[in-house]
Every structure is written in structure tokens, then in C-alpha cells.
């Protein structure tokens, strides 16, 4: 083997890089962590849980457009119930602790919505 030392070193660096997730999670020890967002004990979400899980960002986006562009503040859900289209007043009314709900999933997946640059995070004591 010619220049074997250099080639083997390169190969080892490559292997160390591609196995990064393996040794990183082994070192952090959190591989089995799963987020459990705290949902209100009773009642239902605006739409089905499965739908909310996958599509809540688009729902919020549609709401935003409807309110800001068309001044339409009422959302009629699939089950016929009417909701005010509002991030802080509706979602955060039921899901009142952002840290124990939204953030748990978002941190797990590295999602950082920029909404909270402007929108207030309601605190638990009162003001929403």
C-alpha cells in the first residue's frame, strides 16, 4: 500500500464523521427520549389529533392570512364548531403552557417558529 498511513487516517476521519449520530447519542444517553406534550385532560382539539399533529402550522398560516388579509376571524371546524382564529386567544387558551406543550415537540425536532418574535406568550397567571 502506497501512502497507506495517509489513506487510513483519511478513512478513519471519514468513519468518525459518518458515525457521528451513533457516538453523539451514545454519549448524551437520550436516544430513547420522546416528548410528551401536556394536552388538556378533557375536550378535543379543533380538529382531530392526527390532523393537528401534522398540519397545525398550516392551519395557523391559513388563520393568519384569513385574519390579516380578509378580516375573517371565525373558523368553522369539521365538526361544525366555531372558533376565533387566533394564535394566542384560541390555541393558547387551551394549551396554556407553551413550554410544556408547543416547545416540547419543537425542541425535540429543532423547530423554532418565529411567531413569538411578535406574538406574546401568555403566562399562566392571567393575561392571555
Amino acid at each position, binding site marked *: 500500500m502506497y501512502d497507506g498511513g495517509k489513506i487510513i487516517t483519511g*478513512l478513519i476521519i471519514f468513519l468518525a464523521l459518518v458515525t457521528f449520530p451513533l457516538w453523539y447519542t451514545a454519549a448524551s444517553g437520550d436516544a*430513547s427520549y420522546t416528548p410528551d406534550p401536556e394536552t388538556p385532560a378533557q375536550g378535543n382539539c379543533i380538529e382531530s389529533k392526527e390532523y393537528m399533529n401534522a398540519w397545525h402550522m*398550516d392551519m*395557523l398560516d391559513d388563520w393568519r392570512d384569513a385574519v390579516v388579509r380578509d378580516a375573517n376571524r371565525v373558523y368553522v371546524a369539521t365538526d361544525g364548531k366555531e372558533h376565533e382564529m387566533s394564535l394566542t386567544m384560541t390555541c393558547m387558551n387551551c394549551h396554556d403552557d407553551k413550554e410544556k406543550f408547543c416547545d416540547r415537540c419543537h*425542541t425535540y425536532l429543532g423547530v*423554532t417558529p418565529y411567531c413569538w418574535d411578535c406574538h406574546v406568550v401568555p403566562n399562566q397567571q392571567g393575561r392571555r
Partner: protein
Amino acid sequence: MNVLSSLVVVLALILVVYLGVDKAGLTALFGTVLPYVAIVLFLGGFIYRILYWAKSPVPFRIPTTCGQQKTLPWIKPNNFDNPHNGFGVFVRMVLEVLFFRSLFRNTRTQIVKDGPKVGYASNYWLWFLAIAFHWAFLIVFVRHLRFFTEPIPEWILGLQAVDGFIEYGVPVFYITSVLLVVGVAGLLVRRLFSSQLRYISLLNDYFPLFLILGIALTGVLLRHYVKTDIVSVKEMTMGLISFSPVNPEGVHVMFYIHFFLVTCLFAYFPFSKLMHLGGVFLSPTRNLANNNREVRHINPWNPKVKLHSYAEYEDDFRDKMVAAGIPVDKE
């Protein structure tokens, strides 16, 4: 023909996983077994190919020289295009690997319009598409580490933030999603529309392009149009990483399509032209210093020649030479 067959192969792969997951419910096969097989093939194949190449003899320096070689002190050498030492080679390799410098040259040969002369022109489109595609792919690949690390390291979040800088849409569009699709589609179009290139293109030139295009498009679909429960997806990927695989219910088949195409890419990688990932570092026309005139390179498999020098010859026959009156060096 080659185009069609490679397209058909990719579509068949998609059909297989669609039928397998959606109709036959083989989530464990596509979510666990095949990914493990693919990663073993990838790592094993990669190591095998590199070691195989490393065994090739390098008797002599054969770098492509694109500048003035180091010579007399008053002639200016070009150490990056014609390196004569390790430093020059290092810089040349860095520029090659990170910026594809050799594509940024006059690599297009054509007959010049006025008169039957050959002219050389640049191929910057090729360079642009290649660099957009490769960098976008790398960044997309690194961003996906959010599914394979817990907690997610800060720098991955930083990379995401930079990539999503435009803040268009919810969830935000990434710049690299666009560049990746544009890059790989552009390279495919180039291959299809240049007749010389199409003439020399094989199945294994088109297949990776279609495969990667498929991966990119299904990825964009998953992020923006066909959503699924990503929390379950990460539980699945973390299960793979920690060797305790799970296959949660309710993950959309689009995810399995995306994942299976990536699985195929990994498995196919070491046995294809994609191995230029490792091969670029081993190309003797780039990674050798052009010091053929400075250093004596001895062919390592030259047979050992038994030498008999004049001094030894004289020792053997001195008395006879002296007797015959032939002059000798040593009395």
C-alpha cells in the same frame, strides 16, 4: 433508452415501497431491516473500495499540470496549479474538493466561428450547477441530523436558521431545497440536451440523477405538501440509531418512499460512480506533487539488479591488466 430505463427503475422502487408499506404493511422491512442492510453495505463497500484503490501502485508522479513548474529562481512558479511540495498539493486539493476548481476552467472545446480553428471556452454553467448541487446536498444532509441526534446540537439549529433565512412560508422554505432541486435537475437537463454527452451517458449516469431528484422532490413534498407526524418519524430514526428500532403507526407512506430512496442511495453508493466522494482524494493527477525533476522516484517493483562496477572489475583483473600494460586507476 438509458434515460427511460433508469427512470423506470426509480419509479419501480417507488412502486415497490408504496405497495410494500401501503398495501402489505411491511413497515418493519422498509423502516428497519433494509436501512440496516444499506448502512452495512455502505460502510463495508466504502472501506473495501478505498482499501482496494490504496493498493494500486504509484510508481511515478503523474499530476496534471496547469501552471509553471518550479524551476530556475527567476521564473515564477505556480505552486497551486503545479505544486512541487506538500503545501501546494494541500491547497490544490482544498480548492478542488471545496470549490471544484478544475470545472472552473476552459474545458469546452469547439470550432471557432471565424475560420477552422479550435477554441476553448468556459463551462461555467456546469460549474455552477455542480457546486449548487453538491453544497446544497451536503447542507441538506447535515440538516437531517436533527432526526439522528438528541439533544440537537446548537450548530445544526444555527445551520437551519441560516438556511431558512428567507422566512418564507410556514414551515419556512429552505434555500438549499431549491438549490438542490435546481442543481440536480439542471445536471440532468445538461446530460439530456448535449448530444455528445448523451452519446456517452450510461444507465449508471442517469440512475443516480433520477434517484437523487426523487429524494429531493419527496423531501420537499414531505416538508411542505404531504405532511406526516414527524415526532413519530424521529422516534423511528432514533430507534435505528440506538439499535432498538420501533415502527410507529400512522406515518405517511410518503415518508417511507423518501426513506427507501435514501436507503437505495446508501446501498448503491460504494458500487457506483458516486464513490468519487472518496475517490477524489485518491486521484493521482491531483494529489501528487510534481517533483519528478526534484526528487528521484524509484519504481518500487524494479527487480534487484546485480551490479558489477568498474572498480570491482579492476580488482578482479588488476594483475592481468598491469601485465598487458593497460593503465589502471589503483596501483
